[in-house]
């Protein structure tokens, strides 16, 4: 077979002298490109992750302990938290369903999610439905002027009450 155009080109490239400087520059450019790409992607992700959010504050005051009589289980839907008072103990249970983020409602047996039928007992432990985790308990503290403050960023163990 007669040599084709392709063969000629391949021969030509085989005969090309090895140029260390060219190879070095190519390597340097490649490293530069990859470096730029990696840092660019990293910076973009960092940029996309907000440092502050503009929604509901996760730390808020809910009133004085007297507002919650013993045995009360009052859900504050706007804050997505349920305030539980048992004697002189107060706690806050998140009402965001651990399944798909819907708002659970207090029921006679505990909590029920209207969306996918997850059920929880009064302490937020899963008793039925698809929820994978118990409802989280969040910290309640007493401010110096005697108000209750809930911090939803601060998850505490199930059964951690504040004595008032």
């Amino acid at each position, binding site marked *: 077979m007669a040599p084709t155009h392709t063969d000629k080109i391949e021969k030509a490239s085989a005969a090309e002298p090895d140029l260390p400087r060219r190879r070095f520059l190519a390597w340097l450019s490649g490293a530069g490109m990859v470096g730029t790409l990696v840092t660019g992607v990293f910076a973009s992700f960092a940029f996309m992750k907000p440092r502050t959010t503009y929604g509901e504050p996760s730390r808020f005051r809910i009133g004085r302990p007297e507002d919650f009589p013993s045995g009360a289980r009052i859900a504050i839907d706007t804050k997505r938290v349920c305030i539980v008072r048992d004697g002189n103990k107060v706690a806050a249970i998140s009402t965001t369903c651990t399944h798909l983020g819907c708002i659970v409602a207090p029921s006679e047996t505990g909590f029920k999610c209207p969306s996918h039928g997850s059920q929880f007992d009064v302490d937020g432990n899963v008793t039925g439905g*698809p929820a994978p985790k118990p409802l989280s308990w969040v910290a309640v503290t007493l401010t110096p002027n005697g108000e209750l403050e809930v911090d939803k960023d601060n998850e505490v163990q199930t059964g951690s009450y504040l004595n008032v």
Partner: protein
Amino acid sequence: MSTEVKSKLKTWTDLPANVIKSVFRNPLPTSDRGRVATSFTNFFLHIQPVRFNRHSLRVSYTMGLGLISFFLFVILTVTGILLMFYYVPSTTQAYGRMLDLRSSVAFGVILRNMHRWAAHAMVATVFLHMCRVFFTGAYKPPREFNWNIGVALFLLTLLSSFTGYLLPWDQLAFWAITVGTSIAGYAPLVGKELRFMLLGDSTVGQEALLRFYVLHVVVLPLVLTIFAAVHFWRIRKDGGLSRPEPASAAPRAVAAEPEAPIAAVSTMAHAGTERRFVVQGLVRGPFVKVGKLEEDTVFSWPNLLIAELFVLLLTIAGVMLVSYFCNAPLEQPVNVMHPPNPAKAPWYFLGLQEQVSYSAFWGGVGVPGIELLLLVLIPYLDRGKAGIGRWFARERLLANSLFATFVIVNIGLIVIGTFFRGANWQFVSPF
């Protein structure tokens, strides 16, 4: 009249013809050479080959699903840009703007309807297109990479539709996105972070609306356009649409009109006085064969063009018809305190939601992840050459059965999630 005046006059009398000639280099073709030149010298037509295999025109083979998907995307782009003139991605204004489309914007309702129904239709046609490609074995070498571009396009279509779902800021939108993004939150390790970045907050709110808006109108359409361009390009570079091997394996007779593709080159060579064009590309495999014509090929102009325009008209007509009779849903404005019961994701994610109701991790992340991985790997695992270019080829019984199971199970889950799930996700009968 002096000759000078005559030539001045001629400049003006010839002006319209000269303008047209400068835009369209060739008159409407009446010969094969003309058809080649028309395809070759027009920017929009040169995306297609000058000649293509007759088999590609068979409606029973392609059903035009890829084209329909693309034309739906075009409709979505046009209607979407128009809707952008009246939309504000703000939690206090978005819903009001939806109402304004009904009351105080000319053609506002029909535009929103078209956008909505075309979006739903595109999700469906892209999926059906994927089924067509699978059942005809069209993903096999050398088209493995294009199959995966297609898988990416399918995901981008889902994401585009999903991000658009939030924008009306009604109850349907809000809870569908709340549920949908929670599914994303189940991904191991990165799930929580991913959800937070997507929403820009821990719950769906103003930040999420703005983010979804930017993704929906800029990022995703841009990426989708690039992928679609690569998808189309690869169709040509992979040798056109898949088709069965010609019946006779005997060396194909070279058709006796060798001038056609060369004519494309030589026409150009004579068009300009000094320009000469030399073939510089290296041609191999299923690519363009200069000087040889494959059997069973026809000219793109007018065969392919007419077929495409016909599909475009059908697509527009279909979308218009549905949009005229059915209004896009708009529920009550968002009320964060009152989730509807049941809260449902968009229909194409209801299969996912149904799975999630059994197991949050496996239903939401595990099984879909494995399915996606298999979709990506199929063309590299199934290397057999038999049965390409025929629907449900007997040689591909196993692969087709597996894929059919995947399709039927997923459609079944979507049907259950859509029609058989009532309050508290209890099983209800729709009848």
